């Protein structure tokens, strides 16, 4: 089902956790809310679920205004980071809970509920564990049960709050791939919250980057990584280096030297230059380049990271060099960013 968040604001005791957020989620989409802690991503998820009420604005499920509905009526599947399984119920009873609490004709027979629970356990690859109690399962298994329980009610939208946050790296990667498969198989509209950008970029159809209660950018992994639209997104997603620069006559200047980058459309004046440390060309003859002295050098997996001090301000930037590149030992290195972006200084 489509979900539309329209101009939602949420305050907790006058403190704004979300400021005027709007977002369209397409039916069947797998979408990630990504941001540092305190960015409002979990608040947004809880608002969609109905676990919080918006201070202003509305949330639509399809054409219906869901903000007027209670949590129970919204029919959402919610999965918490710490599973929130019912400890005193078996795995099968946990999964069947949402069906058992229904009233009247919409409640399936006990046999049907059992059948449905086994079917879902099969889907989450835990067949045969019906009779176990949550305490007897591993973290990864518990999270799968929690997901099966959420899917049992055929939710309009599936909401996952840091679903893999409590698991170790190995299980995390495994479950990530598995969640993608489940999503492709079932087609539930799914929103998940994460602070792990790798997880968001790898898993989601679209990523919503949030910061300080606002949506900074919405886009596919490629769009977010290749064309970040704000200094925050550039800095938050992937590795980045930045230097304060000046734009004059369509040229980018550091101190009083042009660095060989032309920016005919950028506004004149102070700005910040962003680039990825691995997206640089080293240059020998410096007629228009960024040059600096090597201040520190670290080996990172297959490459070498070099910190350069630039100009009189001794501004530090990081670039990446091949391990065997002679420039890493030189005291002075000159380079030019291959791909870069200018943001006017705030």
């Amino acid at each position, binding site marked *: 089902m489509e979900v539309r968040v329209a101009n939602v604001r949420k305050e907790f005791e006058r403190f704004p956790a979300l400021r005027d957020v709007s977002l369209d989620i397409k039916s069947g989409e797998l979408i990630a809310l990504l941001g540092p802690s305190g960015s409002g991503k979990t608040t947004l998820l809880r608002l969609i679920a109905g676990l919080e009420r918006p201070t202003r604005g509305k949330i639509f499920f399809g054409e219906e205004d869901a903000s007027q509905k209670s*949590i*129970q009526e919204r029919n*959402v599947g*919610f999965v918490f980071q710490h599973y*929130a399984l019912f400890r005193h*119920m078996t795995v099968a009873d946990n999964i069947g*809970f*949402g069906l058992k609490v229904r009233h009247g004709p919409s409640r399936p027979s006990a046999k049907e509920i059992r059948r449905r629970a086994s079917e879902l356990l099969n889907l989450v690859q835990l067949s045969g564990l019906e009779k176990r*109690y949550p305490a007897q399962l591993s973290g990864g298994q518990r999270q799968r049960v929690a997901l099966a329980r959420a899917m049992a*009610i055929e939710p309009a939208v599936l909401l996952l709050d840091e679903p893999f946050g409590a698991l170790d790296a190995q299980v995390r990667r495994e479950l990530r791939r598995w969640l993608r498969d489940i999503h492709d198989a079932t087609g539930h509209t799914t929103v998940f919250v994460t602070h792990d950008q790798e997880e968001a970029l790898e898993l989601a159809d679209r990523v919503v980057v949030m910061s300080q209660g606002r949506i900074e950018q919405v886009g596919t992994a490629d769009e977010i990584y290749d064309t970040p639209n704000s200094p925050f997104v550039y800095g938050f997603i992937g590795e980045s280096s930045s230097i304060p620069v000046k734009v004059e006559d369509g040229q980018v200047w550091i101190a009083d030297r042009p660095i060989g980058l032309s920016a005919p459309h950028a506004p004149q004046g102070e700005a910040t230059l962003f680039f990825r440390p691995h997206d640089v060309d080293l240059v020998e003859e410096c007629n228009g380049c960024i040059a600096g002295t090597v201040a520190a050098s670290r080996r990172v997996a297959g490459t070498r990271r070099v910190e350069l001090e630039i100009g009189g301000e001794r501004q530090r930037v990081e670039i990446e060099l091949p391990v065997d590149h002679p420039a890493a030992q030189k005291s002075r290195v000159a380079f030019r960013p291959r791909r870069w972006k200018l943001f006017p200084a705030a």
Partner: protein
Amino acid sequence: MTTAPAKAGWRFRQPSVIPGFGLTLGFSLAYLTLIILIPLSGLIWRSAALGWTDFWAIVTDRRTINALEISFGTAFIAAAVNVVFGTIVAWVLVRYSFPGRRIVDAMVDLPFALPTAVAGIALTTLYAPNGWIGSLLTPLGIKVAYTPLGIVIALIFIGLPFVVRTVQPIMEEIDKEVEEVAATLGANRFQIISRVLLPGLAPAIVTGFALAFARGVGEYGSVIFIAGNLPYKSEIAPLLIVIRLEEYNYAAATAIAAIMLALSFVMLLVINLVQTWSRKRYG
């Protein structure tokens, strides 16, 4: 390759390498022996001197049986009432913040601290036919003081903190997310409480019940003031023991004590077993 065959059946769990097992176990056993085991075995010893037929005659005496019924019956009812209201009190203290919450919280412990005789006298004054509450109940035909109902009220007073204090910490640990998840799955408030919250609290509630019940069975000070102490009607077993002692009939006193001890032990053991079973299941 030689490996020790896995021993079937019950085994000690290997204590950890941190020393202390021997010392603490030795201390516990010595302490329990001195404080509990020796006095209680003295009791059994004295009543054993009575001989089986005499013992049986005392225990099956109408007055003894009535006293035991009243003691265990009123303690059971009071503990059951405390389970309901103690859980509600704990709920209010844990879930809501209101002016005076700390004072209410402290008030719960008063029955622990107050001399039970004081409680008994205060309750009697209130519930006597000419007392504040008693005078309101008399026209309705309800007689509280000097009846088993009065005993139940005294035992409710005595037992309340046991339930509140055992349930409260477990209630504080309840994860808000569990309730939220139940709500998203469509459960209404009543279903969340009855199917999700209460089953999780059950072990603590059973413990609170057991403590309140045990305390009620042994209670003496507050009850004798409000009970009226009519033999066969509102005479509790502990009082009967004291009466026998005052008659220098030590054998009869110890016989009644021994049977009380046996009954209490069996009931507490059963409650404990129920708990172990539920803990094992829910981890």
